[in-house]
């Protein structure tokens, strides 16, 4: 039994009993969807269809339908890839790292954060595939035994490391998420009336792997969770480090930077938490989970955002300093060009959104304000997208030989694939919110007697 100081703010509001929690969590799954859900789902579906059409057009016609050129070989594709991978990081951080640090406030948010991770990684993984000139040969990047001759993948290539990093990350996150879901699926299974919903009963029975709630079940559950958390924790750091190697190991000024791994990880957590905020602030309202996702939770996350935002800010300044200090004219020009060249607006959007705006979180009034938090989270999402755009496009568009300098401008297909991937993400997330227990209720129940308002009185 956990004990907690009474002066700590409660993590569950209202007089919630175990049964209340069960009912609250099962409600969205068992009840009919409201109008709002259908509207949002409809919009997302339209965007998703746009995504399908754009991707189909690209694969059918050629990468030339994007705005890329001989100088700028990556732009929105890899920007989106890094952005989505980054977003995924919050989920793993919350569920794995915070589990190891025994942060109980994670319990209300980890399920959805992990779902977000899975769905974001799905989006991210699409981009390396569709950005290929010949995606139908995408399996070439896997070290599979083949009869093409003595062909093997190039283990020197950071893109290959990406393949391993992303696939490992995806599988570990999926397993971790699923293990956590088992007792909750069992709860839903028990709530479903077989007479009316035989199919549902069957599905949830299968999904819950015959969970019976025995002490042995729980003991194993805890052990597996801990092992998986241990496995997932290094991934939080490794995945985005490896993604950053795509740039850091290159020779392009603005990419070739040793600070990238920690800088990218901080940025990933930063953007991930912002996305969690964006999703959960809406969800707690729509699904009625205000009692579980409290202002305190929001505040905790805002503090993480502020911290990581400052880390990112320090990284930006360090980059500038190193460019100047290196004495390398190409480096100096690359960074000067970021701030004052044709893409200055992207750089300053990034600076404003990622460094300046999180400073407002120093004020308790602001960081406990739901509306403000929501707006700021959107800012951070935008800023972090711009960060990747700035790194990729402004570094490429003016590199070593001025004769090759050029510019990039997106086509409607670029836009379609980006906006469409957001639609795809929301389609997945909305379907999830109607079929999965969105809060890890079984685990949450473990803190009712230590951290709920009722017991703190």
């Amino acid at each position, binding site marked *: 039994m956990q004990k907690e100081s009474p002066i700590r703010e409660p993590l569950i509001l209202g007089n919630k009993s175990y049964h209340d929690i069960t009912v609250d969590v099962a409600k969205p799954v068992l009840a009919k969807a409201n109008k709002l859900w259908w509207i949002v789902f409809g919009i997302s579906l339209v965007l998703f269809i746009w995504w399908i059409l754009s991707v189909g057009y690209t694969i059918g016609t*050629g990468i030339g339908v994007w705005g890329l050129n001989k*100088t700028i070989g990556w732009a929105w594709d890899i920007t989106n890839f890094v952005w989505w991978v980054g977003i995924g990081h919050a989920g793993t951080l919350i569920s794995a790292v915070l589990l190891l640090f025994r942060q109980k406030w994670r319990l209300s948010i980890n399920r959805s954060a992990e779902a977000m991770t899975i769905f974001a990684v799905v989006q991210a993984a699409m981009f390396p595939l569709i950005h290929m000139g010949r995606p139908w040969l995408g399996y070439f990047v896997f070290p599979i035994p083949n009869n093409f001759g003595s062909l093997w993948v190039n283990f020197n290539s950071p893109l290959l490391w990406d393949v391993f990093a992303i696939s490992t990350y995806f599988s570990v996150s999926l397993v971790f998420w699923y293990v956590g879901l088992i007792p909750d699926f069992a709860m839903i299974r028990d709530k479903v009336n077989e007479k009316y919903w035989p199919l549902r009963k069957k599905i949830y029975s299968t999904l819950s792997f015959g969970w019976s709630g025995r002490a042995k079940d729980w003991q194993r559950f805890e052990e597996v969770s801990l092992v998986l958390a241990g496995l997932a924790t290094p991934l939080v750091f490794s995945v985005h480090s490896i993604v950053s190697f795509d740039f850091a190991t*290159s020779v392009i000024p603005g990419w070739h930077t040793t600070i990238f791994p920690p800088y990218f990880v901080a940025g990933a957590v930063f953007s991930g938490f912002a996305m969690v905020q964006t999703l959960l602030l809406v969800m707690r309202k729509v699904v009625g989970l205000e009692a579980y996702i409290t202002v305190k939770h929001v505040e905790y996350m805002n503090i993480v955002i502020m911290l990581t935002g400052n880390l990112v800010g320090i990284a930006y300044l360090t980059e500038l300093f190193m460019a100047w200090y290196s004495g390398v004219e190409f480096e100096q*020009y690359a960074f000067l060009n970021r701030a004052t060249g044709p893409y200055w607006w992207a750089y300053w959007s990034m600076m404003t959104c990622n460094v300046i705006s999180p400073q407002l979180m120093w004020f308790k009034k602001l960081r406990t304000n739901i509306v403000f938090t929501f707006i700021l989270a959107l800012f951070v999402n935008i800023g972090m997208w711009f960060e990747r755009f700035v790194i990729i496009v402004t570094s490429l568009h003016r*590199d070593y030989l*001025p004769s090759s300098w050029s510019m990039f401008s997106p086509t409607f297909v670029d836009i379609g694939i980006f906006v469409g991937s957001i639609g795809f993400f929301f389609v997945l997330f909305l379907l999830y919110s109607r079929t999965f227990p969105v809060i890890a209720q079984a685990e949450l129940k473990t803190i009712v007697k230590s951290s709920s308002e009722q017991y703190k009185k």
Partner: protein
Amino acid sequence: MTKQKKYWKGLAELTNDPAIESLKHNEFVEPIPTEEFLGDEKALTQSTTSRRDFLKFLGFSTAAATLAACETPVVKSIPYVVKPEEITPGVANWYSSTYYDGNDFANVLVKTREGRPIFIKPNDLSSATPNARVVSSVLSLYDSNRLKTPKKKGQTTAWSQIDEEIVTRLSDVDGQVVVLTNTIISPTTNAIINDFCEKYDAKHIQYDAISYQGILDANQSSFGVRAIPSYHFDKSDVIVSFGADFLGSWLNVGFEKQYASNRNPKNGKMSRHFQIETNMSLTGSNADVRIPVKPSEKLRLIENLYQSIIGNQSPDDRLKDIYSELLAAKGKSLVVCDSNDKDVQLVINAINNQLSNYGKTIDLEKPYYLKAGDDELVNQLVKDMNSGQVGALIISGVNPSYTLPNAEQFNAGLKKVSLTISTALSMDETAQYVEYVCPDRHYLESWGDARAKHGEVSFTQPTIQPLFDSRQFQDSMLSWSRSNEDYYTYLKQYWREKTAWSQSLHDGFITISESKKSPTSFSGNVVSITQNSGDLELALYQSNSLGDGTQANNPWLQELPDPITRACWDNYITVSATTAREYGLSNWNNNDGSMDGNVVRLTVGNTTLENVPVLIQPGQAIGTIGLALGYGRTSSGKVGNAVGINAYPLITNNDFIAPSNVTIEKMEGEHGFASVQLHHTMMGRSLIKETTLSEYIKDPKAGNPDITFYTHKGKLFADEVSLWKEFDHESGHFWNLSIDLTTCIGCNACVVACHSENNVPVVGKEEVRKSRDMHWLRIDRYYSSDMTEEIAEEQGLGSVSKYKAMEVPSENPDVAFQPVMCQHCNHAPCETVCPVAATSHSAEGLNHMAYNRCVGTRYCANNCPYKVRRFNWFNYAENDAFDFNMNDDLGKMVLNPDVTVRVRGVMEKCSMCIQMIQKVKLDAKRDGRKVLDKEAQTACSVACPTNALVFGDVNDTSSEVSTLKEDERQYYLLEEINTAPSVFYQTKIRNRKA
């Protein structure tokens, strides 16, 4: 011998039961009731398809369609039934030939594969090297817009019928018979035309679209020889060119080689080259001193120079150096001028005469016969045609409806001529107004001879069976003269008496002994040539890509970026930044990297052109505009039509300048340029290292200091600070390419040669606008800027304003060219990042690209510091969106069978012509010897007229390239990032006073 065991299926078989025998012949034991089924008509017609059947059909057809789609289409190759003796599939045959289209002349070698010409390279026996247009001419052979049959009033007809009618009508023609041709340099053709003229009492008029009459007439008047003298740029220590673009478009006879031979700083001596010109020409960009002047100003300076030399005036400030150096180099100097005004050329002759250059650097005893046109005769012809005095007109090799400034009058006159005949290759502007079109053959299908220069003869021979039902002009003339001979016999007869025919044909170029021309000593009446200057003056020029516009339908040439402006698929007026400001004109770059500009209404005299795009050209004389000829074709074919604006109507008085009555007026609207380079300065980076000759003599390493890094071990060279595991480059070959920036004149011949050898696709204007040109080899052109690191420091400028100022080129900048192709780095950034190892290193120092393996991540291109990798954004072959040569069956015949045509989604780049290297290695292996120096070449090094590109094996210590690698001028591009390229450069040396 062991006995074979035999097994029976049963006793019946052993006993040879007849029933078994009969069963063996039936595949099915019981007959299949096909007859029954198919015979039952009722069942067949009335049967309704059940749902199950439908699904079966659906499933089957989907599966069948899917399977069929998976299969690679089979292209059958048909073997020879009787193999021609000289053709071995896979082995190229080379034939010597000669290119002459009235504007360009070159002696060439033609590479044919399986009977198809696919590549043109210089014939080393001659100094007339092919320029970019001549190298491209192989594609014009496969132009699908060529005429496929003779035509009468646009209707296909037969040769016999056409001949019958023409001969009948020629015999009783009412009025003069005129043969209008380009300058004929073929002795046999001249003889044939003369025979024809005798028979029909006809007149032969020669017409040069780009007229050189001024020089011809001036020489006639000064020396009694109406010809172009041979110039010796190689023997000239001081070259002064008043506007003559002799490296780009003036005479086009291959002065590049001569010029470069006297520009080698190794001997401590280089010619000094002054260029006084209006437009920034290719020649001007190579000059040591370049003085931009208005055309009228140029005339004043010529006169001033002459008057100073004869002591009547003191030289103009700008001419002081020129004056003193010319006088110091009497007999070793050369003054040339592009003016087509006889009086101006007389002054030039007088100057050269004063400088005792005749007989030394200018040779009239052995002149060029490349130009013989007479503009007066052509003008008279147009008048005669309109007054109805011309009864028959045969047009060959010229396109007057396009190139004549008074083309409308010509066309009107054409209607009054009762018999009009054209021998155009395609339905060009003139041919479409003509009654009989008797298509000539492309030179690669033709026989011929050429006497370009006194004492030098070269031959043209067919390299392919004629593609269409065409006939050589000479054969047409012979048959119209009712001669029984064919031209081939005629030609052979003619030369057999004078030379060893087979050997001459093999060599393609011979010298014959002819008595020298005997020019009289100089006599000339030098008159004042100054003209009033206008506010705005016009100077027309020939673009490097299209020349006079003959090959406008050639997509390689259309997509060939101008070496100076770096724009393609266009002509435009060039103005200086000052003039542009005055008229409120500008160029700007869009968000997608494309360049746009204003358009103007251009009026010259009575001619007005609307919507003329404006390109701001550093080095353009203030208050002048330049405009390229050769564009604005209306009937050249699918590629060349409606590209640019026809500037021929602006020619006034047969001269290419208009000193007055020129106005421009800004119009509404914008024009999109297809420019492959948007930034024009080096931004203070030492990409092109350069120095002056005097500095070089003092220290050969001048301008090329070693790059060192400060490390904890002290100062180290770039290649000593390395994380790389080195490849073994000691054993076997190590292919390197040296590029001399001093002798590279930026002529683009290498770019087209690369295009041709490596099946590089043409992508069209819109794609070039999106920075997606596919050139494997590009020639970067940089202008100097008024802002340098030193000046910025002096003025205390901050970095932001410094770099902003550095982006702006000077008004009269220094120009430098730098050919950049894949540098074949031995520490290649591209190789490490490819996830599938599609690009990897060879043991011979080359960076390979395996197209089959490439999945198209473009990571390699991003990580390439030289940005030489090109991505196939679309399928460029067999795609209607890219309707160029790779989209039609005829155009595809130019493709090099040794090089893959790349599909969409793969990365491509320079392979250092690996197929050519491989061929040489195999030859050497077969012969059991080592590969000789110079044997292995790349397309670019072959095509280079100045030997600026030298390719070879540096492990062969006797090779030229290994010597060059040790040269003090040698440096690597971006050496500081330690990519250890196999391509290296030699510093640029300018012969300029410090």
